[in-house]
């Protein structure tokens, strides 16, 4: 599972670097249950979204550019989604570039919405996922163990 996702990420990077982009815009058709709040400096931040099947197979659904401080979108309910927040930096003068991602799998529940706080400040990044009750408004930070993944 980890290997598959790593391969997917590497393939994406290689294809992008080669000018043969496979990136597609995420088709946001569901009711909004995910809010991504971001605060970043000096990097381009993106969110890649994959669906995850019963056998842990993944399907790339698209990418959302986190170019605004807050973005709302919808992801499937009661089905796992693999989310990858990517931070891409580049320096024209040194012709160097870097890419690091924070990946997690979310299994959204009915009657809940999810908030993801993304930050990248001064080479320090953080991704915190919250679950919020739609009716109660109760908000809690999700633990790493809750961010379900196939290989756990």
């Amino acid at each position: 599972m980890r290997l598959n996702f790593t391969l997917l990420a590497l393939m994406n990077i290689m294809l992008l670097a080669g000018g043969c982009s496979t990136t597609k815009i995420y088709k946001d058709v569901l009711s909004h249950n995910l809010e991504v709040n971001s605060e970043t400096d000096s990097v381009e931040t993106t969110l890649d979204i994959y669906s995850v099947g019963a056998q842990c197979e993944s399907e790339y659904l698209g990418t959302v550019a986190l170019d605004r401080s807050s973005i709302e979108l919808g992801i499937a309910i009661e089905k796992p989604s693999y989310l990858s927040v990517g931070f891409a930096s580049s320096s024209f003068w040194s012709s160097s570039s870097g890419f690091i991602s924070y990946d997690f799998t979310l299994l959204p529940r009915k009657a809940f919405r999810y908030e993801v706080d993304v930050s990248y400040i001064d080479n320090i990044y953080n991704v915190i996922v919250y679950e919020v009750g739609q009716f109660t408004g109760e908000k809690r930070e999700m633990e790493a163990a809750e961010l379900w993944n196939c290989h756990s």
Partner: protein
Amino acid sequence: MRIASTLYMFLFVTLLTGCVTSHPQNATEFRAAVPGAFLAKVDKYEVTEPFQKVASRFEKMAPKCFNVSIKTVSQSTTSYQVIVTDYKPTVIVGEDRAELHLQQHHRQGVMKITEEPEGGYYLMVFDAIKLDGGNTRIDYYGPSVGHESIIKAVKGWASGKNVGCPDLTA
């Protein structure tokens, strides 16, 4: 930049061993080797956070930030280098002392010169020590140059300010 940091890492690993006959095989040996090693240092500072909070952040953030593999590509007109590095964190928490060990294993692009401990060469060790009055002391053992983002991130975990993961590609 990356070539420079790779060369630096090579030097750090080489010089830490003295005349390259062996390399620290555990955190205790690493702590003992750092004070006399070139391009390495021991740094001690105090934070006004209680020990339990610091230890708890070590436990929460170290696996989140350091269970990763990083691929770096450096290219110039005369060279092309690909390095793949696996990081491994270990956190040990006791009643009044917490330890964070960070190891790195170069899967590709860097030559091994001495016996490598399981999990990779020791890169850094941070000890958090409970102090009277609710403060915590941090003892750092590791490189004196480079890896600023890691050092800054762990300082953030200790102080509770800008808590996050270091960009290991920076």
